């Protein structure tokens, strides 16, 4: 009898905890939607801030939306250039039990855990050293460093799922490993790789601490890599920091826009790996 009571009590606690977790998701998204939606307007999405925007005057946050997409998009492309070769290399050129591969994976795991503010500080130091000022380029480099481990580890998992036999078949047909990597494995893993890149994009666009000192902030849409770029997370932070309720309201709306972009990226990632997965040989 005591056994049953204990089991029921444990079960109630566990279900309770699970409901709390699910409730938190609903609560957070609900709050952002409920407070952000009334303040959302077409002007906000389609205009750059006019003078005195942060004092409650008109305008929008198009500069931050475009800036964020440029920073995160540029960073995704930049780190793709390093992530793809590394992820392929880990699975094609290294032996499965390779010491070096283990070392690379371990460093990437640690890099994944490094807080984004540390990347921000490091990126800032790097920019001082290179003689760069807070600019779109600085933001792109820093965010690229931050999302690099996320992207490589995600791609590593995807490529790891490709049957080893495909590489062996390509070896057997006389192809070099280079050809096996770029013409066989890459094609097989493409949907998963695309979704890994999208996940990294979502992480990059949502992060504030790494762009805080590196990409600067400006009311204009950046026209070159050397100009400072506004980013959405910082726009939200600054709007919330003002004492004016109407500006804070727009901060909530900006938070809604950012959440929507991040969720859209992650939904697209799921869709890509799910739908395009049909064309992959298993």
């Amino acid at each position, binding site marked *: 009898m005591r*056994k*049953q009571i204990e*089991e029921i009590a*444990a*079960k109630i606690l*566990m*279900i*309770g*905890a*699970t409901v709390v*977790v*699910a409730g938190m*998701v609903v609560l*957070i*998204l609900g*709050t*952002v939607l409920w407070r952000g939606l009334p303040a959302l307007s077409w002007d906000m999405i389609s205009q750059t801030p006019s003078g005195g925007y942060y004092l409650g005057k008109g305008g929008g946050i198009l500069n931050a939306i475009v800036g964020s997409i440029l920073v995160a998009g540029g960073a995704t492309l930049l780190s793709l250039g390093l992530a793809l*070769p*590394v992820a*392929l*290399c880990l699975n094609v*050129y*290294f032996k499965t039990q390779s010491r*070096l591969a283990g*070392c*690379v994976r371990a460093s990437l*795991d*640690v890099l*994944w*855990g*490094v*807080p*984004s*503010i*540390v990347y*921000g*500080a*490091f990126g*800032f*130091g*790097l920019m001082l050293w290179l003689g760069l000022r807070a600019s779109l380029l600085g933001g792109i480099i820093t965010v690229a*460093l931050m999302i*690099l481990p996320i992207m*490589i580890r995600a791609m590593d*998992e995807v490529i790891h799922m490709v049957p080893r036999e495909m590489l062996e078949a390509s070896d057997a047909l006389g192809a*070099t490993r*280079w050809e096996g990597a770029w013409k066989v494995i890459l094609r097989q893993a493409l949907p998963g790789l695309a979704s890994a890149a999208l996940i990294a994009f979502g992480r990059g666009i*949502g*992060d*504030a*601490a790494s762009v805080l*000192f590196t990409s600067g902030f400006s009311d204009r849409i950046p026209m070159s890599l050397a100009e400072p770029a506004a980013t959405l*997370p910082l726009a939200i*932070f600054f709007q*919330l920091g003002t004492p004016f309720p109407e500006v804070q309201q727009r901060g*909530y709306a900006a*938070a809604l826009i*950012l959440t929507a972009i991040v*969720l859209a990226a992650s939904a697209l990632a*799921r869709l890509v790996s799910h739908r395009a997965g049909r064309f992959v040989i298993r």
Partner: protein
Amino acid sequence: MDRDSIRKGLDRWGRCGMVVAAVLCILLLLLMVLGLLWKSWPILESHSLAGLFLSSVWKPHGGQFGFLAFIVGSLCITGVAVLLAMPVSLLTTIYLSEYAGRRIRAVMSPLIDLLAGIPSVVYGVWGVLVVVPLVKDYLAPLLGRFSSGYCVLSAGVVLAIMILPIIIHVGTDVLKSVPQGLREASLSLGANRWETVKHVVLRRAAPGLLAANVLGVSRAFGETMAVLMVAGNVAVIPKSAFDPAYPLPALIANNYGEMMSIPQYDSALMLAALMLFVVVLGFNLLSRWVFSRMELHISG
């Protein structure tokens, strides 16, 4: 040059290039340590370690950089976050991997991914909108205390929710690694599900689950934006959970603008970043070591 030698050459040089790229990832880690150490060296050289880590006098203009209040602030907030997150995430992990059917898992898994995907600044907005008023108007008066709402407790609550997904995610992988045969053996001896979980599964998975929490701690320790928005940012050692605190990441984020104008200020902030880096590195290596001892392959 015939076609074959071009192909072979491409393979050889390509292999070199890709291995170099992979080694670059290890170098990046070393570069970060060295870069941060190099930048924070001036202050480590001119101040005693006791003066830096055991003093809470923070007067950049007077050349006094005592990090104690910030360190204690970070520890308090992280401690509250883990105390809150640990029971909830452990119970959820056990439920999802030992009890829940496929349908519940299919609902919860994307929800947890969603929680992990929400940007930290949005957590901050939510904290300001919901947690801060809750603490200020209900929780603090209920306990007969005054609080502005921007305090250790609010920051801890927000952080706890932020680290839930990673603990659940890693914890689920840990429980999945417990051999099914162990559960079956226990059930066949007449133990019910809960007894099996308590005496068999948890005993086997305990180090891994602890390591999952350590990973959560390291994530919490470095989290910046959300904490910055709700912690209150007063550079005094907090006396209770209702007092404001000023954690290390917030210190870096708040003062970067003016650091170039005060001597050694930039070096002090780099030292703060180095501290974060070292603590997070230590926690990460500790949990990775446990995972590798358990022969678990976990990323996240």
